[in-house]
């Protein structure tokens, strides 16, 4: 083995080791933040004063609900950025960013919907209603599930990246339109920040401890999103490399 290859191997090994340390730190931080969020949401945050009984307990799911919706929003925004940058630069890494963030976004979006459904049973007395935000989240999830199904059907790697980037662009563009059309239907979803919905049911005022918990939730879910994204992105990258090596061997 020549010296240059040896140095190259050593540097790549060093880089890999420092990457591993970085991932370890990130995962540990994420775990700690999620743990802190659970503690804050269940114990630290004061209960909502105007609610009582199961409604008051159910209100605590709000922190997970908001946290995951923030994460999902960042994920889908990043998928838009990834698809546009891919179409311009044609770098497969950006396509992997899109795919990874769509997958993480689907998980976070689904947990938003699930948390909302669990909350709405005691508050609205139904798991499901055609509320604009629920409708929009569900349609968005369907859009991005379609994105993943669509990807699977395309064999050529470059074609897959290009077609699914085009679709991701359309999917993201349709979300605000879906939201506004759903909003013009009747709405009973509480609008906690900036704005009041006179027909809202189950609303409450935000206190200091609640706000702090909310910040913990946002931070924890951002960390969770980044960790999942990075790991999934790396996995996709390795997958492509294995695919390339296999083709070389055949």
């Amino acid at each position, binding site marked *: 083995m020549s010296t240059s290859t040896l140095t190259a191997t050593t540097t790549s090994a060093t880089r890999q080791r420092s990457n591993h340390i970085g991932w370890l730190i990130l995962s540990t931080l994420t775990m700690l933040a999620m743990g802190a969020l659970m503690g804050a949401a269940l114990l630290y945050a004061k209960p909502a004063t105007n609610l009582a009984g199961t409604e008051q307990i159910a209100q605590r799911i709000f922190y997970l609900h908001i946290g995951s919706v923030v994460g999902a929003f960042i994920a889908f925004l990043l998928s838009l950025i990834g698809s546009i940058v891919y*179409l*311009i630069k*044609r770098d497969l890494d950006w396509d992997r960013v899109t795919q990874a963030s769509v997958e993480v976004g689907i998980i976070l979006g689904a947990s938003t919907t699930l948390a909302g459904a669990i909350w709405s049973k005691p508050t609205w007395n139904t798991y499901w209603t055609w509320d604009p935000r629920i409708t929009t989240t569900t*349609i968005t999830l*369907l*859009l991005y599930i*379609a994105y993943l*199904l*669509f990807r699977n*059907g*395309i*064999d*050529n790697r*470059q*074609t897959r990246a*290009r*077609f699914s980037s*085009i*679709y991701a*662009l*359309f*999917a993201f*563009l*349709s979300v605000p*339109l*879906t939201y*506004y*059309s*759903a909003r*013009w*239907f009747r709405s009973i979803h509480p609008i906690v920040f900036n704005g009041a919905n006179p027909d809202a049911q189950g609303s409450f005022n935000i206190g200091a401890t609640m706000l702090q918990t909310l910040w913990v939730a946002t931070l924890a879910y951002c960390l969770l999103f980044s960790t999942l994204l990075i790991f999934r992105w790396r996995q996709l990258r390795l997958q492509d490399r294995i695919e390339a090596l296999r083709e070389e061997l055949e």
Partner: protein
Amino acid sequence: MSVSLPPAASSAPISSPDAGLNPVQALALSPVTMRTGRSFGRYWQHVWRMMAKDLRIELRAKEIIVVMVAFSALAVIIFGLAFDLRVPRPTMVVPGVLWGVLLFSGILGLNRSFSAELDHQTLTALLLAPIDRSVLYLGKFLANLLFMVIMAAILLPMLLFIFDVNLFQFWILLALLLGIIGYVGVGTLFAALTATIRARESMLPILLLPVMVPVFMAGIKITEQVLDGRNWANFQNWFGMLVAFDLIFLTVAFLVFDLIWEDV
């Protein structure tokens, strides 16, 4: 004029006039000239020919409109059977039936739009033609639009017979036209996306229907409100939604269309 290439040759990259630039960069440099060339009239002539070709094929083979109309008749009868005895007034379900049937049967026509070219191995010839790819899109778009409008024109009397609801009212017809424009605009692009992939027939509805939700909701609401005897002030929002949808998606589809055919 035979431009039939062996399948192997079709995998060769097609060189664009702006060598060295990828389409997105070329598009950013000169969005209009890149599309239309120097002469605007010639461009529309090409679009017209592309559309006329599809119409001629349809007149001879009758494989799209007949299938769409047959399916929509069947769907209307099925919905009629399902709802007729269960709801107090047919006007309560007719808006949903109209738009639902329209979306589902439209898929059948859109699916044929590009896969027919693939089946007859004429897609390569179309791509080799010395025209901009957006001509292909606009020609197919206009042809599909006409097919859908004809289908809707047959669907409305069917709804009148089965449900006894008169939908021939100005605002409903306008909403139908705007809705169909948006539907076909996105649908034609997605049909092109799915034409070359595995399981193309089943993929198109999964891709298209969630994107069409705003059109679907707007269409249902307008139809509902017109049937309830409301006036323009009650549903002008929804017309805004339809127009916005059409403008946004037609523009984007027109811009990204030739990214699809880089390596057929």
